[in-house]
């Protein structure tokens, strides 16, 4: 019988009367990888904050037993001293400091208070080797490296703190498939060396791949713990535990949705990198979308999908843009975002917190900000009543869970935030919607609701373009998909042709063509 390195017993954490965690219990065996699953708002992050001392001992009730002793961490430093290290979803690296400086940030190698650069570099190099980055120069600033490598540096940093228990919060959220695989394999490798890991992720296929056990949390309660070998580890099984019901179909069917004429077309679209006028990012792109049609833009990260969408949307990306845009058969000029809105084009960004929402402002403010001039004002004066009425209508229509539309969007869960962004663009009454990663980082229930909204949009005759890195999402929602690779349209698939294998096949074939 393996010993338990960590036991969380009857953890209760309240925020001004609301129980975020209500009697949470689970045990982690030494040297295993435990996944914690739950919908957004289920309490996963709160739980990890309790464990790592972000919420100090005394602000919650219950016991944390680590390596056989009851712990009362006052701060994150206390938990780190014991070897519990948490890597948050948002990377905590200082962009202009070097790799080595970042690895030992707050944990500097020093002699008599003076930094020992020799040892810093030597140890940094050794740690990088452990995470498979042995060839990397430890003296370059981290912002010159990709997100995938930065995530590995975070792990190296944790190893530098002599972690015995590593907590990873959504470690692959910003990574592409290849980088994710690399990271997961590294975690498996660390396990071989005796590391215990707790991983939080929405990507259930990844969890099935690495986890030895899965603890499921719903509404602040621990529902169950599944063990590898004893229990079923399929995505359907995990989802059932998370949402408390069988979700037989993750993608709602789109019925009675006739496809009409082409209403949106891009011809010979060429775009160059915003900082480097010689670097062509998009090459001779031709795409079209019909009314009532949902079209995907599939491809690996860095294929140029977001760049394509943003360059179309009022030249928000790139320079030396050439090519034509046709809406409803008419050639239109879209040089600014204002033009794009005027031409009934909408773009829902992949990064809702940076590009989609004004987090400190209310749901109402955010919902109407793009449509304000056109639909909610007369001679520059806002019509507050018609605004309030419309916002209430949309709140119910897309089911934003809130008591009042005056609540700041920053306090909503990811799924509800995404609904607000969607509503914001629906309120501009567009004919063409480009949705960039519309369900990134949100839970399955909210995903389903967003797919339902997408179906509704298509049924009302809109043209919808979906950019997604999750191939099942493209397969589940699109009538047709373009596959982008290295800034070019590598192929086009429609209907039943759209499968994971087919998409990858198109990318591989395109890559080979490039090598010849």
């Amino acid at each position, binding site marked *: 019988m393996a010993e338990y390195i960590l036991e969380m017993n009857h953890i209760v954490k309240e925020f001004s009367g609301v129980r975020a965690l209500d009697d949470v219990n689970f045990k982690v065996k030494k040297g295993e990888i435990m996944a914690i699953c739950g919908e957004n708002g289920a309490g996963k992050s709160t739980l990890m904050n309790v464990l790592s001392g972000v919420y100090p001992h005394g602000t919650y009730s219950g016991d944390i037993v680590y390596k056989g002793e009851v712990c009362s961490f006052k701060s994150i430093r206390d938990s780190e001293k014991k070897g519990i290290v948490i890597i948050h979803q948002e990377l905590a690296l200082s962009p202009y400091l070097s790799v080595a400086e970042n690895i030992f940030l707050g944990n500097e190698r020093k002699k008599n208070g003076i930094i020992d650069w020799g040892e810093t570099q030597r140890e940094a190099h050794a740690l990088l080797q452990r995470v498979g980055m042995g060839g990397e120069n430890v003296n370059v600033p981290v912002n010159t490296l990709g997100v995938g490598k930065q995530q590995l540096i975070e792990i190296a940093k944790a190893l530098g703190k002599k972690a015995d228990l590593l907590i990873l919060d959504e470690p692959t959220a910003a990574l592409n498939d290849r980088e994710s695989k690399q990271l997961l394999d590294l975690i498996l490798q660390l396990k071989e060396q005796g590391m215990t890991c707790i991983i939080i992720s929405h990507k259930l296929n990844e969890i099935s791949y690495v986890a030895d056990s899965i603890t499921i949390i719903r509404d602040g309660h621990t529902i169950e713990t599944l063990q590898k070998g004893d229990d079923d580890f399929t995505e359907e099984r995990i989802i059932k535990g998370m949402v408390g019901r069988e979700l037989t179909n993750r993608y709602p069917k789109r019925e009675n949705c006739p496809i009409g004429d082409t209403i949106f077309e891009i011809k010979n679209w060429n775009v160059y990198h915003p900082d480097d006028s010689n670097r062509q990012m998009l090459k001779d792109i031709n795409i079209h979308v019909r009314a009532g049609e949902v079209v995907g833009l599939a491809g690996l990260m860095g294929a140029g999908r977001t760049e394509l969408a943003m360059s179309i949307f009022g030249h928000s990306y790139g320079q030396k843009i050439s090519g034509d845009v046709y809406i409803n058969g008419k050639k239109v000029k879209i040089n600014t975002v204002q033009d794009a809105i005027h031409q009934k084009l909408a773009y829902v960004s992949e990064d809702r917190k940076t590009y989609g929402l004004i987090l400190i402002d209310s749901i109402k403010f955010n919902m109407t900000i793009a449509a304000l001039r056109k639909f909610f004002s007369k001679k520059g004066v806002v019509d507050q009543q018609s605004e309030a009425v419309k916002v209430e209508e949309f709140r119910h229509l897309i*089911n934003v869970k809130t008591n009042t539309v*005056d609540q700041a969007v920053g306090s909503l869960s990811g799924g509800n935030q995404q609904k607000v962004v969607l509503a914001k663009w629906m309120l501009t009454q567009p004919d063409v919607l480009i949705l960039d990663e519309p369900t990134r980082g949100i839970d399955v229930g909210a995903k389903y609701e967003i797919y339902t909204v997408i179906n509704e949009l298509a049924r009302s005759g809109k043209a919808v373009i979906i950019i997604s890195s999750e191939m099942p999402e493209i397969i589940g929602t699109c009538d047709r998909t373009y596959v982008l690779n290295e800034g070019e349209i590598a192929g086009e698939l429609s209907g039943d042709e759209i499968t994971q294998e087919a998409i990858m096949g198109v990318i591989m074939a395109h890559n080979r063509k490039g090598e010849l």
Partner: protein
Amino acid sequence: MENSNVKTLAPKKVNVSLKQYGMVLALIAVYLIFAAITGGKNLAPMAVNNIIMQNGYVIILAVGMLLCVLTGNVDLGIGSVVATCGAVAGTLIVDYGVSSPVAMLSALVVGAMFGAFAGFFVSKLEIPPFIVTLATMLMGRGICYVILQAQTKGPLPADYTWVSTGFLPTVKVGADAAGKGGVDLICLAVAAVIAVLVVLGDMRSVAQSKKNGLPVPYTWQIVLKDVLIIGVESFFFYKLGCYNGIPIMLVLVAIVVAIYHFITTQTVAGRQIYAMGGNAKAARLSGINTKKVFFWVYANMGLLCGLAGIVLSARNASATPKAGDGLEMDAIASCYIGGAATSGGVGTVVGAVVGAFIMGVLNIGMSLAGFDTNVQKIVKGAVLLGAVTVDLLSKRKKS
């Protein structure tokens, strides 16, 4: 799919947002504290009158500064620009015999040009506003000294100083034989009209919300709020009525505040400033021309500096090269005391005005109490720090 997502219906009653009224309470508290310290000297009609007369230009500048603060920045150059605008008007009148209206117009144009200059660098060339306005601060002061040749220009004629020293006509009742005492009926009428407007305004918005099925605030909270507002404004106008009636300065300030309150709360342009301050990238992708917003915010600040320059030189009846020194700090402090956030996107015109009033009440109270000017600075600094600390801590507690 089964629906676990219960549709939460809008509650019929909501709480009145207390934040702004908290500031008003702070204003009353400061006022009463000094009433105690000075033995009621600051309750005298003249002292109340001076709150407006001595702080009118700070209020005007605080309103303009609020827009800069909403974008997440400040304008450091306003003290110098105010002095330069006053210098232009003063020199034109004294040295060139230009009429007062033309001189005033010139001051406004010069202010707007300064603002457009800063706005150009800030928006078109994307130079950080801190640096651009640090430059206009230095350049403005220099230009002011050059124009005035380091001398004071004066005296300025009565039709110029009227904006800062004049009063509306009065209809006094209850005065004794020597014409002393008594109350101006016009002041009382204005107080009554404001009271009626406040009540009617609330009734109208409640009625509209009810009609559209939107939540309405608790009635007792509305009543309490109105009693507070009407109490403060009635006291204020009663005291003015006991003095010389309504100052022209008050009319001017009221017009400026009303215009900018309207712009920030009721117009698309106002929303765009808030959106840009809250998240410039998201604002841009929502179809807001952020450069244009930036330019107009700074150009507008310049225009208001022109107005403040007129008011300040009119009050002094002369243009002096040292005028307006440190005014930028008073304006910035007013915004922050009034609840604006340094990161941008948060703040109101009314808040900034209340902030400016707190500064004004402090100034006058301390003068009347005979505080040393150096001690006054210490107190003002402490109040700024204290107000912002309380504000931020209470917000942190809530979240």
